[in-house]
């Protein structure tokens, strides 16, 4: 069992592979659309990054704070519906509506979701499911809010405008690619910063022992509120992106429990509580799911990607409960150490 963790080499050490490795990766990611033009491949990569983004945002609550939320899709829905409704009714650009949705989601997280935070483990998970379902049920039964159309279960349709940047719509998938890439990098940056500063340490402490954390001066309520609001805000932004990508939203599709579960499970497969775990999880799950859908899919085999998800989750829990990132990180560290030794010898 691993009992040591090297905290000495920092990512800011410029000569360390820990720094230029990710940098190279980022550069590569930015260059891909210049080379790859096929829209279905771009869509595939967009989906991976989209789920990675959502899962990173989820990770603030589910990983750092250790509260297993199985209702995060509620925030996706809030984001998607807010920006879409504001656009359809007031003509407000989704770029702005996105942030309105984010703030709204943060408010909901803090007021409605917050009392749930006192609950632990499975109780919290149950409450989060109930929370998301209540929001979904309410949305499904709402046809108007004042004069703003919500249209209940039929959902909202965004008029396809072709290439219309101000309305957050593009014909060329590459634009969506870059947007989600930037969003994903921002989410990574945010989670990384959190993990290295007081908030991250406090959340970890709370996760391990509430009383000890309090006795050490951690303001539990404030930490949880901050974490909840941040997570909800970021998730909601993802909801707007999603709405603008597929141009049609309806309650089951953006707030459904399956969506929530996918996000949570991806984080767990990859390694929740770590910064890069969610990305890894998305890299494992989305290709598996999309490829099975493409090659084995069709009417007869519907739901097979979920079957695969279920199997992966069980396998991970049986054999590598800390997430796939653990053995990978070990390999990565020993590899970069070897590189360091070599460059020192040179």
């Amino acid at each position: 069992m691993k009992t040591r963790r090297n905290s000495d080499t920092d990512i800011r050490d410029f000569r360390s592979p820990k720094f230029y490795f990710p940098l190279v990766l980022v550069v590569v990611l930015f260059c891909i659309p210049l080379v790859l033009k096929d829209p279905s491949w771009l869509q595939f990569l967009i989906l991976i990054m989209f789920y990675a983004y959502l899962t990173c945002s989820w990770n603030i609550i589910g990983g750092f704070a250790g509260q297993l939320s199985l209702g995060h899709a509620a925030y996706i829905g809030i984001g998607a519906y807010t920006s879409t409704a504001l656009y359809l009714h007031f003509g407000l650009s989704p770029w702005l509506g996105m942030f309105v949705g984010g703030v709204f989601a943060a408010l909901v997280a803090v007021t409605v979701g917050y009392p749930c935070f006192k609950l632990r483990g499975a109780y919290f998970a149950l409450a989060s499911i109930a929370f998301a379902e209540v929001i979904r049920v309410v949305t499904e039964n709402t046809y108007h809010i004042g004069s703003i159309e919500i249209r209940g279960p039929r959902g909202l349709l965004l008029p396809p405008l072709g290439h219309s940047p101000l309305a957050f719509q593009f014909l060329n998938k590459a634009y969506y690619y870059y947007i989600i890439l930037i969003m994903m990098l921002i989410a990574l940056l945010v989670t990384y910063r959190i993990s290295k500063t007081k908030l991250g340490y406090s959340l970890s402490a709370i996760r391990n022992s509430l009383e000890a954390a309090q006795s050490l001066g951690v303001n539990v309520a404030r930490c949880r509120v901050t974490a909840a609001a941040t997570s909800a805000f970021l998730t909601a932004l993802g909801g707007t992106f999603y709405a603008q990508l597929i141009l049609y939203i309806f309650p089951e599709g953006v707030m459904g429990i399956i969506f929530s579960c996918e996000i949570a499970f991806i984080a767990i497969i990859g390694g929740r509580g770590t910064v890069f775990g969610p990305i890894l999880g998305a890299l494992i799950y989305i290709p598996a799911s999309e490829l099975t859908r493409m090659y084995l899919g069709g009417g007869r085999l519907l739901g097979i990607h979920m079957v695969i998800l279920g199997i992966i989750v069980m396998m991970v829990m049986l054999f590598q409960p800390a997430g796939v990132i653990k053995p990978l990180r070990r390999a990565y560290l020993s590899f970069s150490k070897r590189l360091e030794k070599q460059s020192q010898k040179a």
Partner: protein
Amino acid sequence: MALFEIKNLTKNFGGLRAVDNLNLFINEGGILGLIGPNGAGKTTVFNLVNGFFSPDSGGILFKGENIEGSRPDVICKKGIGRVFQLVKPFGDMTVLDNVVVGVFSRVVSAKEAKKEARSVLDFVGLLKKKDILAGSLTIADRKRLELARALATEPKLLLLDELFAGLNPKETEEAVALVQKIRDMGVTIFVIEHVMQAVMTLSERIAVLHHGKKIAEGSPQEVAKDEDVIKAYLGGEYVFA
């Protein structure tokens, strides 16, 4: 004026009076030991001081200020640290990170926090193990870690709840020396203990709690000879675990 005072403190749980009109004080730089049979209410006193419970009546004064009923994290920031009876290490964090959490109560920068954490670990003798996950430490090291974490918040008053439980004689000796070193740094100490050798050596004064009431107070020698104390510990109707 004493640094720390408990005045007429009372706490009931349902029908049970856990703490009954308790009066205690500790002067700055002193060490007060609190002993008594199991179930006497000692840990409840700590929970009241620390902010986990609110008293039903009475007050707790620290540096002249009433702190009863405040939140635990507020009380920590005012300068009271606590070591728990059942140690609560942050298991999936490293030893260093555990202490960093404590330092963050008064420091903002992570870099500075890590530096200070290192010196605290050095003080308690855990620096070599700074990268080990706290969950895999031995019991003696876990206690050291609890101490280090509490010290990291730079308390003026330190609450030690059965620090010496489960330690072998050598470890006990080391722990006593460490506590004395802490006192010499200017920290006032409030000890709950069952391990008599340790608490008698450390404390200048001892108070004895029985059924939530103080039944004796004085120097260790005086208390050891007190009849009520002997009856409380060895008396017929009371099962001394």
